[in-house]
């Protein structure tokens, strides 16, 4: 199935021997992960297993202690490399993190205008294009606080897309949403997935994982315990910990 989707086998992300400590707490243990261009990865695991920490290391929102992270050929190190990596990596947060004092349109044009130097006209045209893509162009002039959670998260996705990243990271994008709003956000992410975007999604939405993932990554206690295609992963998990986890989240 992976081959049918035409995954380019060059590496989008390469993580080698990654370790991260919070004081004495060992948050990531010898994590290795390689992501091909166009590949869609879903990371799952119990809370505190290091899923969020892992993807936050990829764009250096968290600094790692040992190991290497290479994104699209750029190895993370000095400030310039971090800047280069961030310019290729978009991120969507659990809490949306829209700028509450700016309108939706201003939220979307801020990055393109200030970081990329686009004119207001070009930035607004680009913003409207992506607002249409997430299907809320009519909200452009509203303030974030007046939108529903699902709409806010779609704006957050559009804000990331306005930077035209090659890779998107999603950190539990639906965990803060009311149940009836989850699907509108997942639909947008699935739409992105089918367009060939490289992405890593941390989520507990297993239906979404089956639909959109090329590969599942299961983490526990800061380490990657198991990886596999969704069918392998859901039908015949190799490890006991993974089986227990799947039983717990799928039983409802």
């Amino acid at each position, binding site marked *: 199935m992976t081959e049918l989707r035409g995954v380019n086998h060059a590496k989008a992300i390469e993580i080698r021997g990654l370790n991260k400590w919070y004081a004495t707490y060992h948050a990531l243990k010898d994590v290795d992960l390689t992501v091909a261009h166009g590949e869609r990865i879903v990371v799952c695991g119990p809370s505190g297993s290091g899923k969020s920490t892992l993807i936050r290391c990829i764009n250096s929102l968290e600094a790692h202690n040992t190991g290497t992270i290479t994104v699209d050929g750029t190895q993370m190190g000095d400030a310039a490399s971090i800047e280069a990596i961030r310019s290729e990596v978009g991120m969507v947060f659990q809490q949306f*993190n*829209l*700028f509450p004092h700016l309108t939706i349109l201003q939220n979307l044009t801020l990055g393109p205008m*200030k*970081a990329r130097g686009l004119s207001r006209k070009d930035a607004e045209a680009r913003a409207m294009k992506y607002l249409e893509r997430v299907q809320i162009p009519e909200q452009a002039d509203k*303030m974030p606080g*007046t939108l529903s959670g699902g709409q806010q998260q779609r704006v957050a996705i559009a804000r*990331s897309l306005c*930077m035209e990243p090659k890779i998107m990271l999603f950190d539990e994008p639906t965990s803060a949403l009311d149940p009836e709003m989850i699907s509108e956000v997942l639909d947008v992410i699935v739409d992105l997935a089918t367009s060939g975007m490289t992405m890593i999604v941390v989520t507990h939405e297993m239906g979404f994982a089956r639909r959109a993932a090329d590969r599942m990554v299961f983490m526990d206690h800061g380490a990657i315990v198991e990886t596999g295609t969704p069918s392998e992963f859901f039908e015949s998990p190799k490890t006991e910990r993974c089986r227990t986890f799947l039983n717990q989240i799928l039983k409802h």
Partner: protein
Amino acid sequence: MKNLLLLSSLCLLAGCGASGNWGWYVINPTTTQGWNNITFLIDGFGATILLSVIAAALSMAIGLLVALPGMSDNRWIRMPSRVYIEFVRAIPLLPMLFWVFYGLPVVLQSMGISVRIDAFWGAVITLAISDSAFTAEIYRSGIQSIARGQTEAAKTIGLTYSQTMRYVVLPQAIRRILPPLANQFIYIVKMSAFASVIGMQELTRRANELVVTEYRPLEIYSLLILEYLVLVLIISYFVRRLERKMGSDESR
């Protein structure tokens, strides 16, 4: 002119009274002598206001320059700010005023810089530095009250540190910072009275001089307190208006 009305009613009340201990005649606007005394006292407003406004503006600028590095992740960048705040905050205003007025010119002269620090600038420097330690802490608490997700989102759309501060953090923090900053301004207005001891002709100095010639401390100091009260009430009124204006710009 509100204070004049209040004042004249006060004078009338006291003047009609039979108490031999009171001598409101010194500030009775209906007599030439009283009127001259009142204008002499009121002429101090200009100096008090000018001193306070310049000192407050400098304090706010220095405070921001101290607060920003004070929030760095790097302890070597953070340390000078902490040292400055702890050091300045520990010095009482009056000794600092004496040091700046009598001591600083000597220090500067020994460095080959020959400047005269007059009473006005001595008071401005002292008030600004002394107050800046407090404004720095106000900025820090205001900026830190803005959720960390805001700066993280700014990083992911490629904004630099100064762009993040300017477009994302400070516009949100300013509404929380404004009320305590206004408090500090009122504090500066009141502390400007200390400038009287190095001979600056502001409200308190003039009252002192008048007491020496008229020997009517109760009446003159009562008027002095009334002057500060009126000044502070006027400031409070404008601050409240400003707060309302800034609050209404935003729907959250």
